[in-house]
């Protein structure tokens, strides 16, 4: 496997800290400790692209150049970062004009980018490089009976489906099954969570969150598993507001890496489980019940 430079992105240093903590812990236990890309910067997310396209590409490409200098591929857990970096990589390869402008900007800061960096996601690395067999062997506390709804969000499979099926992604399902949990059918797997609309237009954003939570409840899920820090934030932090308007039971929202970490026997504290707004005690109790 080519060396991986871990690109956490801004969210994983802030609201999504539990994602960062649990990923590091899981990769450590599996014998592939993460090494963070030195001096990385913000990918620009969707907002920068709404203001200035050239600057947005230059900003993102700096991270590609830094990874190339380390002869590494980028390991990118956040959906928005993943798409921005992948889009930039493709755009620089396809557009001579943009490639030229960006190279000039990188050159001004002593960097270069030849196009030799792949953008990889933890789901891809865990299922393809590490492999489910190795993960199954490493499971110490199977999560038997835990019903999980897998929610992937949008930008990980759209517009590019790089490592999973665009309409029916399976990589997280497979990892969750490897923990012994039961994966319930969840047709809203890749439906939009509302992104920043929860903050800017709450009546719109909260309704989108409601539909996702309601579907999980209708499917009998004990917990929703997510892979994107913005999805996690929307579903978790806005849940009490949604429940004020709609009749819903509380449901914990965990990163897939937190659920995987629990099965690997990693202490809940190390996985950032206590950072959840909606209590994840029901998940912890189930683990304790099986351990007993």
């Amino acid at each position, binding site marked *: 496997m080519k060396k991986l430079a871990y690109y*956490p992105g*801004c969210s994983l*240093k802030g609201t999504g800290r539990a994602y960062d903590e649990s990923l590091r812990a899981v990769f450590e236990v599996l014998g592939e400790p993460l090494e*963070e*890309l*030195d*001096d*990385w*910067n*913000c990918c*620009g*997310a*969707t*907002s*920068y*692209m*709404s*203001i*200035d*396209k*050239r*600057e947005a590409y*230059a*900003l993102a490409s*700096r991270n590609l150049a830094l990874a190339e200098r380390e002869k590494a591929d980028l390991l990118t857990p956040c959906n928005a970062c993943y798409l921005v970096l992948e889009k930039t990589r493709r755009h620089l390869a396809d*557009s001579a004009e943009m490639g030229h*402008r*960006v190279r*000039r*900007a*990188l*050159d*001004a*800061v002593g960097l270069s980018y030849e196009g030799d960096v792949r953008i990889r996601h933890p789901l891809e690395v865990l299922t393809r490089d590490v492999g489910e067999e190795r993960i199954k062997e490493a499971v110490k506390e199977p999560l038997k009976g835990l019903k999980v709804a897998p929610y992937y969000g*949008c*930008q990980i499979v*759209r*517009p590019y489906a790089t490592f999973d099926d*665009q309409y029916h992604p399976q990589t997280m399902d497979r990892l969750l099954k490897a923990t012994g949990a039961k994966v319930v059918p969840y047709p809203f797997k890749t*439906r*939009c969570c*509302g*992104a*920043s*609309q929860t*903050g*800017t*237009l709450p009546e*719109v954003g909260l309704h*989108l969150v409601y539909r996702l939570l309601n579907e999980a409840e209708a499917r009998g899920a004990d917990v929703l598993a997510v892979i994107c820090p913005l999805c996690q934030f929307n579903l978790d932090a806005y849940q009490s507001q949604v429940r004020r308007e709609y009749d819903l039971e509380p449901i914990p929202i965990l990163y897939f890496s937190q659920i995987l970490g629990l099965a690997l026997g990693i202490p809940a504290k190390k996985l950032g489980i206590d950072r959840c707004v909606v209590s994840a005690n029901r998940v912890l109790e189930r683990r304790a019940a099986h351990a007993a």
Partner: protein
Amino acid sequence: MRPNIRTEADRSPEFARWITSLPGAEKIQECMHCGLCSASCPLFAYMDYSPRQLMHLGREGFEADVLGSFTIWLCTSCYQCTVECPRQIPVTEIMYALKRRAIEEGVYTEHLPIPILAREFQRMVAGGIWSARDDSRFVRRPSGVDGI
């Protein structure tokens, strides 16, 4: 009450040329109005113009309607329309271009906070890159970004 009718006089040929010259957007000419972009859009119910209507208004040059619509600001870039379009029209990327032009021309709807969020986010990032190396969090913007 003024009837909601558009006439030739409301069209801007320049705007029509601009929108269809965006990368991949020449395919708007091939739109067959199947409506999959609108049907698949999770924000469709809240929009004034559906994505299909917006693409059509754009290609006909109805600049004021397009740039003044809520639709471009409701778009969360989930790319559902883009992957559904049987003519491969890059609807989401066109939405981005429309956002940029609306901000440039200052014609976005005043009471919508979304363009303000985008602008402030961009200023924050451009003003000081979020860097992992430095605990101060906001460090110097890489020089050279200005030059492109």
